[in-house]
């Protein structure tokens, strides 16, 4: 051992002296909370892949309907129930327009003398399912985003007021929440949707009518935790108004938990929209959403399974992506995970 050590070249070692003037130097670059979170989420492959999938789906919901020349809501009965047919892929024996007619398997495009392509096929009224799928996804996402946004706004305001002012205000507000939380979401959503005419807004309202409660409870808990800490006391001593303390000091501390919660609210909203559409309380034709498309597809499951597969696949993909991003964000925004 000792012999080997002596053989090592002397110049590969460097003498380090402790320099007291450098003791306070920070070797790692100072990162803001969000930079730090970004560094951490970048390591989470599942979340990053999900983010790309999500961006792709969002892009397709806008670009998709323009990629084919068929209108998503145009009815063309002579083109009804066509299986998918994609140029190029048809030569490989998939997406070649071959489907069942009764018990026989025939090329329905040749049979009906149709020379256009329906990439994902058509439904029973001859509407193009490709453009319908992306239009439907767009509406589902819109419902989910708006519902989640309402949940956040109402939840943060309610929870913030309740937690910040405390005392009697808090008591009354919390009693109300305790009663409301007892009402099952399923029941209230169905009742609300039945009362209003079915449409995008009634679905949004039905979903958010109890959706904000979870958010408000979390925000209240966080506000209670932060409002008695020294930095708030310091701000108050310096004469900051309530509005300034809430906006500048408390809210930034709550951002992480609000965002994480929102990421889990969105898939729940997507689910409830699809669920309502499936039991017949959702959007009415010719409008489409993922739920109505799945419902339509389900009716023809024995003959045209592709009608079900594409929307079911996109729905599942969206739900998985949001859940994984939510998981990733929760880990990344957890201050205890700092590395």
């Amino acid at each position, binding site marked *: 051992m000792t012999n080997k050590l002596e053989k090592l070249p002397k110049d590969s070692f460097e003498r380090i002296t402790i320099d007291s003037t450098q003791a306070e130097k920070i070797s790692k670059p100072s990162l803001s909370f969000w930079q730090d979170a970004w560094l951490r989420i970048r390591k989470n492959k599942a979340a990053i892949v999900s983010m790309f999938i999500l961006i792709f789906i969002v892009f397709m919901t806008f670009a998709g309907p323009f990629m084919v020349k068929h209108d998503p809501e145009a009815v063309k009965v002579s083109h009804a129930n066509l299986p998918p047919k994609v140029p190029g892929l048809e030569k490989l024996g998939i997406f070649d327009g071959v489907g069942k007619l009764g018990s026989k398997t025939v090329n329905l495009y040749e049979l009906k003398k149709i020379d256009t392509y329906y990439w994902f096929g058509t439904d029973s009224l001859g509407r193009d399912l490709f453009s319908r799928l992306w239009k439907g996804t767009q509406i589902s996402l819109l419902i989910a985003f708006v519902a989640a946004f309402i949940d956040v706004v109402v939840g943060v305001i309610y929870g913030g007021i309740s937690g910040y002012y405390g005392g009697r205000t808090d008591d009354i507000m919390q009693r109300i929440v305790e009663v409301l939380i007892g009402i099952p979401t*399923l*029941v209230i959503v169905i*009742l609300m949707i039945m009362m209003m005419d079915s449409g995008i807004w009634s679905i949004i309202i039905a979903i958010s009518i109890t959706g904000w409660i979870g958010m408000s*409870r979390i925000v209240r808990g966080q506000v209670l935790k932060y409002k008695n800490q020294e930095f708030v006391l310091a701000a108050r001593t310096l004469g900051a108004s309530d509005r300034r303390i809430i906006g500048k000091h408390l809210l930034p501390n709550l951002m992480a938990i609000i965002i994480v919660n929102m990421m889990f609210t969105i898939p729940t909203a997507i689910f409830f929209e699809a669920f309502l559409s499936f039991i017949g309380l959702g959007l009415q034709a010719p409008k489409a959403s993922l739920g109505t498309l799945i419902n339509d597809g389900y009716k023809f*499951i024995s003959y045209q399974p592709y009608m079900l597969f594409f929307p079911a696949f996109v729905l599942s993909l969206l739900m998985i992506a949001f859940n994984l991003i939510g998981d990733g964000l929760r880990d990344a925004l957890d201050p205890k995970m700092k590395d």
Partner: protein
Amino acid sequence: MAKYITKRVVYMFISLFLIASLTFVLMKLLPGSPLASAEKLSIEQREVIYEKYGLNDPIPVQYIRYMGNLAKGDFGISFQYKNADVMTLILKKLEYSVILGAQAIVFGTVIGIVLGMIAALKQNTIWDYGSTIIAILGISIPSFVFAVLLQFIFAVELEWFDVGLWNGWKSSILPSIALAMGPIAIAARFIRTEMIEVLGTDYILLAKAKGANWFEIAFKHAFRNALIPLITVLGPLAAGLLTGSLVVEQIFAIPGIGEQFVKSINSNDYAIIMGTTMFFSVFLIVIILIVDILYGIIDPRIRLSGGSK
């Protein structure tokens, strides 16, 4: 504890009262009448029927009568099914839904616990990743998507089961599996996290030091402690199952409460809708209450009254 339970029960009744009032108001506001599809009735006949069912009384009178009947457990009579008593109708259909729900929750939690334990004991191996993927799929994908896929694969393509037909216990297999996916995922995730935490504690180290074998550590020490918090998710799990069962029963044509409920929504059968809504609410609220109380009894470390204060 007694004080806590009393408080919770009081809130439970306020919630139920609110739901009951809300169902009543909504049903009165709703467009459409149960007689709308009976076109052959003349106006006089319609009046007679309205009179008979008390639909001509002032709204407050109807409300008080409705609440009074509810308190007695009388949900009124169905407008559609030959004047069948709603309570009897629900109880008759309950059997199928209970079989389905019970199978799903038992199957789901058992498989979920096994998956979660494998994942925790073989952390960061292919087993762990596999069970994590199953858990993510189970949490993300709605049960009705599983239901239609299962039906397509096993009933339509492979023809192992009948399509859209209730034919004894065999018909409950596919829907139970579809409903169990959620519980599997939640239980697996939960048990994994809890087990990993418990396995890192000092008493597990002590057990190892004393020479306890792997099996004893996993089951006698870690598993039992990891299991307690699982009770807390049983409440939300039941709510999820109920939501799922509405659609899954529809898909597999199971003559349960969920299917009945959806049917009634589409035919404006107020009495059944109100009755089923109340039934669901009572069911869920009571389950969540029981779960909370159970948790307090089993794990004395949890101080229920504290909450966020």
